[in-house]
């Protein structure tokens, strides 16, 4: 596969990988330091910090809460985003560009502004449902990522294939399931991954809307850093890196979609 790749390209890719991956190694090394404070290079060796984090119910609760929140948000963003992307790319709708601009606006407006605006809105509505508020807030932010990824897939659909299927007598739902879906699936999956990660990592929206019972991981990390800067923070960061890596591997294995295709 790589026989025709030029040495220069290989070199550039290696440099980029080094720049991207090397910083991720630092917290992993710091997390095994046997000192009561963070130090690099690490001194001694211990896995106790991982034990401490995993035994900490606060850390566990926040992690599970973030997983639940990101999963619900991703599901809703897909339910809203896929039909929206299909409609905006396949049909010329009056005001379509304005709708697209509105939906994509969270990519331009600072998230902290969106967060405080949502808090104000929910306060005026008298809402006390924190989880629902977080779901709405995160969905607003994640929707653009789903729509961008899915729209690109819809634009690239080969219309000759759908026409051929229809001419050969396939009803619309069969065309959708067996011709269109295989072509847009990478985009939907990419949108889902983006959405999940954006929600899982979000701080500015959660900062305004969360409370002590609904406390996502990024907020928890911030409070832990304020409490004490010991290697347990590096251990949490390392666990998040491992989790992201695991996510990519699982997706690769389960869905059988190569990273190269996702990136295309």
């Amino acid at each position, binding site marked *: 596969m790589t026989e025709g790749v030029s040495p220069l390209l290989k070199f550039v890719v290696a440099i980029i990988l080094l720049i991207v991956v090397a910083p991720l190694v630092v917290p992993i090394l710091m997390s095994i330091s046997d000192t009561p404070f963070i130090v690099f290079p690490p001194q001694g060796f211990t896995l106790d910090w991982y034990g401490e984090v995993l035994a900490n119910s606060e850390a566990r609760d926040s992690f599970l809460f973030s997983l639940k929140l990101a999963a619900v948000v991703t599901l809703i963003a897909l339910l809203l985003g896929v039909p929206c992307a299909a409609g905006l790319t396949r049909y010329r709708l009056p005001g379509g560009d304005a709708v697209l601009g509105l939906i994509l606006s969270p990519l331009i407006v600072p998230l902290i502004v969106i967060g405080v605006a949502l808090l104000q809105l929910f306060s*005026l509505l008298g809402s006390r449902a924190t989880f629902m508020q977080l779901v709405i807030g995160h969905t607003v932010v994640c929707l653009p990522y789903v729509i961008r990824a899915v729209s690109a897939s819809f634009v690239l659909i080969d219309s000759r294939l759908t026409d051929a299927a229809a001419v050969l007598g396939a009803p619309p739902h069969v065309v959708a399931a067996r011709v269109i879906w295989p072509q847009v699936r990478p985009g939907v999956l990419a949108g889902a991954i983006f959405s999940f990660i954006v929600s899982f990592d979000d701080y500015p929206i959660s900062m305004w809307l969360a409370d*002590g019972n609904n406390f996502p991981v990024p907020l928890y990390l911030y*409070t832990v*850093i*304020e409490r004490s800067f010991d290697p347990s923070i590096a251990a949490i960061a390392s666990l998040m890196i491992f989790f992201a890596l695991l996510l990519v591997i699982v997706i690769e294995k389960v869905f059988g979609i190569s990273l190269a295709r996702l990136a295309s």
Partner: protein
Amino acid sequence: MTGLSRRTFGKLLLGTAAVTAPMSFVRNGWAAGKEIQIGIWGGAQGEFVKKQIIPAFEKDFDCKVTPEEGFTLANVGKMRATKDNPKFSVMFIDDVAIPICKEEGLIAELPKADMPALANLYPRFGFDGWGTAVAISVAGLFYNTSVTPPASYAELWDSKYAGKLKLVSPKNTPSVFFLIVAAAVKSGKPLPEAQYLVDDAFDKVAELKPNILNLFDNGPQAANEVAQGQADIGLLELSKYIYPATAKGAPVNMSFPKEGSFAGNNCQVLVKGGPNQDLAVAFMNRMIEPSVQKPLSEFALTAPPVAGVEFSDETLKYLAYPVEEMDARGLFTPDWGFINSKRSEWTEKLNGIFAV
């Protein structure tokens, strides 16, 4: 069969329960089932409030308290955003923000009659009845224990510290302390007078630039970096962020130069029109009771704002307590009313000097 009817048995059971129930439960029956939301800090204080104080309070009052961790600016922002339909009942903020909140009508005056614990509060931490302090930190220098800290702030301008100092970010409150220090060094006046001379001290601030390695906005992280020797000294930060590292054995400690040091007053305020104000007031009263203040202070290494709390000598190493000790250390609380009117202008100038 005893001949005891079901109704009589029920009355007997209720009567027995009432007699044997804890007195606090009976006394606080009015609060049963009520719920409040409070904005607290993160950090060690937040951790203690969340894990120790709130569960005990909920048990005593049969109520629900939902904490939301944040920091002063965010907490004020949340009060502003929910002003028309308050979500919070109690908010933890620094003393710097109390005049602003009062002026904007975000907070209510405390009902003194319903807060018996106010009797032990040092008057200087009462803020004219618009809040109370709950924890006092001392702001000063923090240094790597391999170097000798300066006896005077003026020494920090010496070229021997070129590239060896970490300075607090303009967005953090202790940056105001730094400006007052610069004004005191330039004018030779004590801190209380120097705070009104900051406008004339920005040339002195700029002179320190060659000695500044970088800016920091996270105290515990900065303490860790100084402990590792990335810089010799950090200025200025609150003891609550530094001493936990010192107590863990990290080679970092605090020093308080001869010009004096600053009080970092973490406070609580009653949100105007917030839900269940009676329960909110009871919670605020609980926060300043000596039985809560002692363990909170020992955990977070901050001083109580109330009189009569006993500490071990080991704990007192980290606290400026009691009030006589605060005075002996020259602990100074700036005139926030004056400073708040200047803060944005000063922050802009600081950014201009230290921007890359």
